[in-house]
Every structure is written in structure tokens, then in C-alpha cells.
């Protein structure tokens, strides 16, 4: 699938624009929100442990931690809403979203890539703009963030919705919010940050999320079907 990012790449002949500016701002907003949410959430969840207490005092105590959590939730919420409108109302966002859809052959390509890695051969698979792993990261983080935002909103509006639902529902929402939060954090730390920082050839960091650009050589190696002749 041809990507919008492959067009208008006259800035540098040896590199291509992979992530446009709007994408990078959305990503930064989301990263800021998620990091703050994770730190303030962990301080609450593990309040009775040494690291939890340390985090709590670092965040200015119980009250300040709550305010920080809500501010970061607002940042994440803003990123989600902005991304939604970007996808729905802009050509570039719409195309980028379609490129993230799972397509036929993804699992075959993934299996081929895994076999290549197991055999110790140089990585080469005919991925388009996104690999199956990148698509999975997007969808897991997107659905997880929406679930967190909805459950968090229900906990925030607890007083107003208490009359509408039995307390069991509130208890369940609390468990979901905590469980999903830990799952997302593990997911982001162990997979997303790994692939950006510690994956072979990436250390100390893949700068694409800051500059938006990757080399043409890398594009043809990792995303050959995205290359415009």
C-alpha cells in the first residue's frame, strides 16, 4: 500500500518522511499522558510498598498524585480525540489508519520473518507501511487506552453514576482499570520501548518518533512494499 508519507520527500534524498509532524505531536502528547498516568497509577496501586511510597512522595503526596493522574488523563484524552478527528477528517490520517488495518498475508509474513530470525538470517519480509507487530501495538494500545479512558471516566464521575449502577459494577470497573493499566504498561515497556530502544540495530534509540524520518535503505529493508520507485 502506498503511503502518504512517501510523497513530498524532497527534503533529504537519503531519507523519507515516515511520521508527519501532526503524528509526532499526537504521539508525544500520548506518551506524556501515558507516562504520567502509569507513574501516578502505580503509586496508588502499590501504595503499601517501598517503591509505591517513594513514587507517592515524589509526586507530592496522595492529593497531588490524584491531580497529576487527572491532568495526564486529560492529555491522553486530548490525544485520543485529536487522533480520531485526524483519522476521520484528513486524507493523510485516513490513509495512515487504513495502513494499520490487518490484511491478508500478514500472519504468513510474520511467520516468515520469525523463521528468518530463528535461522539467523538477515531480516527481510515484504511488509508494507506497518509490520504485523506494529499494527498489533497500535490496536492494543488504542483499544487499551479507550478502555482505560472510559473506565477512568466512570471512576471519576463515581458520584454521578453511583445511582445508575450497583456497586458490583463499580468494583468491576476498578479491577478492569487497574488490570488494564498494568497490562498496558507492561506492553508498552516490554514491547514498544524495547522495539524503539533495544531491538537489534536500534540502540540507543530509533529517532524516527522525533525526526519523523527513516533512511531509504531502512525503508526498502523493513517496509519494501511502501517504497515508491
Amino acid at each position, binding site marked *: 500500500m502506498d503511503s502518504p508519507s512517501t510523497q513530498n520527500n524532497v527534503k533529504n534524498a537519503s531519507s523519507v518522511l515516515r511520521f508527519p509532524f501532526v503524528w509526532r505531536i499526537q504521539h508525544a502528547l500520548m506518551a506524556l499522558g501515558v507516562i504520567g498516568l502509569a507513574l501516578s497509577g502505580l503509586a496508588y496501586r502499590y501504595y503499601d510498598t517501598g517503591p509505591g511510597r517513594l513514587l507517592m512522595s515524589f509526586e507530592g503526596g496522595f492529593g497531588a498524585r490524584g491531580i497529576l493522574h487527572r491532568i495526564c488523563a486529560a492529555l491522553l484524552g486530548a490525544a485520543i480525540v485529536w487522533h480520531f478527528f485526524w483519522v476521520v477528517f484528513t486524507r493523510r490520517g485516513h490513509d495512515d489508519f487504513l495502513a494499520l488495518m490487518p490484511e491478508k498475508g500478514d500472519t504468513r509474513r510474520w511467520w516468515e520473518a520469525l523463521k528468518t530470525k530463528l535461522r539467523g538470517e538477515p531480516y527481510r519480509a515484504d511488509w508494507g507501511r506497518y509490520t504485523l507487530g506494529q499494527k498489533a501495538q497500535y490496536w492494543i494500545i488504542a483499544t487499551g487506552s479507550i478502555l482505560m479512558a472510559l473506565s477512568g471516566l466512570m471512576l471519576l464521575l463515581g458520584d454521578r453514576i453511583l445511582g445508575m449502577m450497583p456497586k458490583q459494577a463499580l*468494583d468491576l470497573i476498578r479491577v478492569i482499570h487497574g488490570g488494564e493499566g498494568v497490562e498496558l504498561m507492561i506492553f508498552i515497556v516490554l514491547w514498544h520501548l524495547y522495539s524503539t530502544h533495544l531491538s537489534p540495530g536500534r540502540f540507543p534509540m530509533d529517532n524516527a518518533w522525533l525526526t519523523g524520518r527513516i533512511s531509504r535503505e531502512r525503508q526498502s529493508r523493513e517496509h519494501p512494499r511502501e517504497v515508491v520507485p
Partner: protein
Amino acid sequence: MSLPIKSCFAVKLLHAPLACSIISVAIAAAGPVIAADAHVPTDAACIECHSRSNRLVERLTPTKASRMLVDTTAMERSVHGSACLACHSNGTALAIADHPATTTTNCGRCHAAQEAEWSESIHGLQAQAGNLDAPRCNTCHGAHDIRMHDDLESPVYRRNLPATCATCHESTELQSKYRFSRNRLLTYKNSYHGIAVKFGRAEAADCASCHSAHSIRPSSDPRSSIHPANIPSTCGKCHPGAGEQFARGGVHVLAEKQSSPGMFYVRKFYTWFIGTLMVLFFLYIVIEHTGSARARRKERSREGGRR
């Protein structure tokens, strides 16, 4: 639950008005440590015998000494100060007032409203029926070291209250004896209320916010603040939205299969899901790095072969 001082015959005799003067004369003759006017019912006279300044204490066994001694430093710190006779007297003559039947009566002389509430509570009814396990004023508030309820060191201060209630309600012996619901402290401590109170939030609920301080009644009692019919109004004190619907569901909830299957299965799912994810991620990382190392080795050996 044991009482700090037993109202045995010898102690009654020692404090009886008639016996007092005879005994005090005899003790005064024994040494200068006992004031000559010890028979006069004053707070100072009480302290003189019941503090460590009384050298006769050294001759007592540790058990007897601990029964007799009063922590005078704690008394001076307490909200009542060193006012022995206010509690340990019936107003006309010295009397031992530590017996369960009289303790609350003495507190009630000044705290009548609280006493009235307590006497109709499950604690009060049991105590008046002679149950020595039932908590009286001093069980929760302390005896000689009584602090204001907003004093950080008071056992009934918001942050200390859960541990004070837990003394009985988390006691394995009393839980079995009276079939108390279990894990009340654990579930409270892990709730938003418990965490907020621990970190000093003034508006969060402690035990007394829902169960009341002195009018504690079992949930089966229609007058109880935690009777299902009263839950909306009790929760509604802080959460105006809480209605009848909200009363459906326990408050001290553990993620157990029997009592709350929804929470149980959701928690189980996340535990397994997160565990599996971690294992798969580590496996993937190992595969990627070993594969990459093998690819580099192959590349190097090919380059070596070409040379």
C-alpha cells in the same frame, strides 16, 4: 479481653473510706514515701501511690506492679489530665470504678450522649449483658492516655481507627467465637477510602463514617447505618448520587469466586494474560537477539571467506 485492674477484695478494702485511714497510718509509719494524708481523696494522693515514685512498688512482683502503676506521663498528656477522681470515684467517696459495669457509667457522667448511644449499640448491649469481650469506652479510647479524636496519637484518630477496630474484628479468636465477617481490615485498607485515609485525606470515610462511632449495630438491625435499607442514606452523606441501586453489592469486597465472581474472573484473566504476555515478550526478545547475533556471525564468516 482482660481488664486492667481487677476489683478484688483486697483492692476494695485498700480504697474503702474506713479502711483507708487505718491503712494509711500503718503505711505512713513504714516510711516517708507515703504521704501522711494519703487517705484524703485527692488526685495527687492517687498519683503518689500509683506512680513509680512510690518505692513500695519495687517490692511487688512485676504483674502486681503493672496492675497498680499508672503511666503518669501519659495521664498528663491526656485530654483529661491527672484527674483520677473524675473517673475512679462515685463523687462522694473513693471507689474502684474499673469494673465493666461501672466504667461507662463514670464516663457517662460527662459524656452522657455518647453513653446513651453506646448503651443501645451492639457493643453496649453485650457489655451490659456481662460479656467481657464487648468493647467499653476504654477499649477504644484508652484508659489513662485519652486523646482528642483529632489527635494524631489517639486510637480513634481517623488514620488509627481501622487498627483499633481490627484489634477485635481481626482477632482470629473473636472472629471464630462471634462469626465476625473476615477481611474487613484488608478490604478497607485496599479501598479508595482506606488509602485516602492512610494518606491523611480529611474527607475520606473511616470505619466510623459508615458504622457510626457509638451507635454501632449489626447490619441486620433496621436501625443500623449499614442495614441495606439505610445504605443509600449512609453512602449518600458523601456520595449524593448513591441510590437504592447502589445498595446492591457488598462494601468490603474481596475478589473471591463465591462472593464476587465478576471481579474474581476479571482479575484472573489479567493475571494470566499479563503473565503470558511477559513470557511471550521475553521469548521474542531472546529469539530476536540470538537470531541477530547468529546473522552477524554468519556475515562475518562470509566476509572472512571472501578475504
